[in-house]
């Protein structure tokens, strides 16, 4: 299980990450801000991993329903929202565990990081918030179902568009106007840019990006708590 989870970003990095290696260095520097596409991609890959891991929140809740365990929980005074927040925190933790793995892979493949400590701290906070936010988002969509396939379907349905409408893999300069607009509303863009500042460009923290992520997390968690309190059933 863990091997598979780690294998996925690794394959992205190794195969996709090297697909632009043949581009002229000048072009890379101009459009990606660094001469190595791998370096550009690693923060994006981390964002994508943290997002994808959010699926485990909704999956865990569906399984708790299936196994009847949610009944055990909901016959105690523990509020439904606590269950929801715990699932989100759990999935966020899984997501964060991927961060050092991906960073290490990058280092092994020769990526030199230009670290800015203040930005790193801000990025770490951003990853926690984004992890919670994405976990909440997935869980909102599966709150009414006990179908174990639903989280996977929802995951594809949400992560694919978010991934390709963000700057996780390519810079905004490549995008047509409409895609740029979407990208500006995409939380994945902000958490990726925070990471690039901290790790690749060595730039000071971008408070606005952090605020955008905080807003995303606040909205998804607030909506999630309300939806779960109103709609979550034990089976």
């Amino acid at each position, binding site marked *: 299980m863990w091997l598979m989870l780690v294998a996925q970003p690794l394959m992205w990095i190794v195969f996709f990450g090297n697909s632009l290696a043949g581009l002229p260095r000048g072009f890379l520097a101009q459009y990606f801000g660094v001469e190595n596409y791998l370096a550009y991609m690693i923060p994006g890959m981390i964002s994508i991993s943290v997002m994808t891991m959010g699926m485990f929140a909704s999956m865990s809740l569906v399984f708790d329903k299936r196994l009847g365990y949610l009944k055990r929980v909901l016959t105690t*005074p523990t509020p439904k929202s606590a269950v929801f927040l715990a699932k989100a925190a759990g999935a966020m933790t899984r997501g964060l565990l991927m961060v050092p793995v991906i960073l290490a892979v990058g280092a092994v493949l020769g990526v030199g990081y230009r670290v800015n400590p203040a930005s790193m701290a801000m990025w770490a906070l951003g990853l926690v918030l984004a992890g919670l936010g994405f976990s909440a988002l997935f869980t909102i969509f599966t709150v009414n179902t006990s179908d174990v396939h639903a989280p996977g379907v929802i995951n594809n349905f949400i992560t694919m568009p978010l991934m390709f409408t963000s700057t996780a893999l390519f810079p905004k300069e490549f995008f047509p106007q409409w895609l740029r607009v979407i990208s500006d509303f995409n939380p994945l863009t902000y958490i990726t840019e925070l990471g690039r500042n901290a790790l690749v460009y060595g730039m000071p923290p971008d408070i606005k990006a952090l605020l955008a992520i905080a807003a995303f997390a606040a909205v998804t968690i607030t909506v999630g708590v309300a939806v779960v309190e109103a709609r979550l059933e034990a089976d």
Partner: protein
Amino acid sequence: MSAIVVENLAKRYGDVEALRGISFEVSRGEVFGLLGPNGAGKTTTIKILTGLTKPTSGRAIVAGFDVVKEAAEVKRSIGWIASEVIVDDELTGWENLEIQARLAGVKNWRERAAELLRYFGLAEAANRLVGKYSTGMRKRLEVAMALLHGPEILFMDEPTVGLDVGARMGLWEVIRQINKDFGVTVLLTTHYMEEAEELCGRIAIINKGRLVAVGTPGELKAKYGVDVVELEVSKPVDPSKLSPFGEVVVLDGRVVVKTQRAEEKLADIVKAVDGIKSVRVKKASLDTVFINLTGASIEGEHADIKRLYARVRWARR
């Protein structure tokens, strides 16, 4: 003061009317049994009383609190045991108790947990994964988890299903003890009449979402108990010959007469029928009360399954 008050409780799942307005009361310190055939609405009643699902209409008060408006207070006062054992297989017995303690908000749980594990003979297995426990051990762990926060009222949905004779009697003893020594009110469901008779001060029988009788086992037997005379016959019987003795159900090869004081009428019944191969008499018991009140479904289904199976066999060809 009553531990449980149920007023006109109804629950609808889409087209299914699981409960069609039931009312009953359970006093503090009682062991109350909920009996009824499969699908009668027993589990649904427990789900409403434990706050797992909301009633469509009607009202229920548990431990003095409204199950809809004051669900959190209700949940603080109750313990619950599912008919399917629900524990976390990937954790040890001890960890299961710890989670339960945290969910229930019990602070000094360690001592009590250790004591409960000892009481239920699980002390040795405390640090083993629950996935490797036997059914009986899992059930005992579940009971320990339900008692950890010292509930006033305990809901047990088919508590002894799947237990061997010894384990079943052991659990009966536990139920009696916690009821007697700590005054815990128990509401349990069961399909075993013997168990209901053994444990319950009072019993409610529900059928198809309706309450059909409430009372002590003795009262129910006196009021609804019928003697059942079952005749095995070699040729068809004219039911009108038997109807003076009581209600008659004719099946192929068998006739069932529901009557009172069967021993006095037995000679006349036997005389009225030709070609009797065997006679069986069942005196009034909770079993016959149950069959009487919930319909003689067992006999009815018997004939249907023969026909159904014949069709299935035919379809296979």
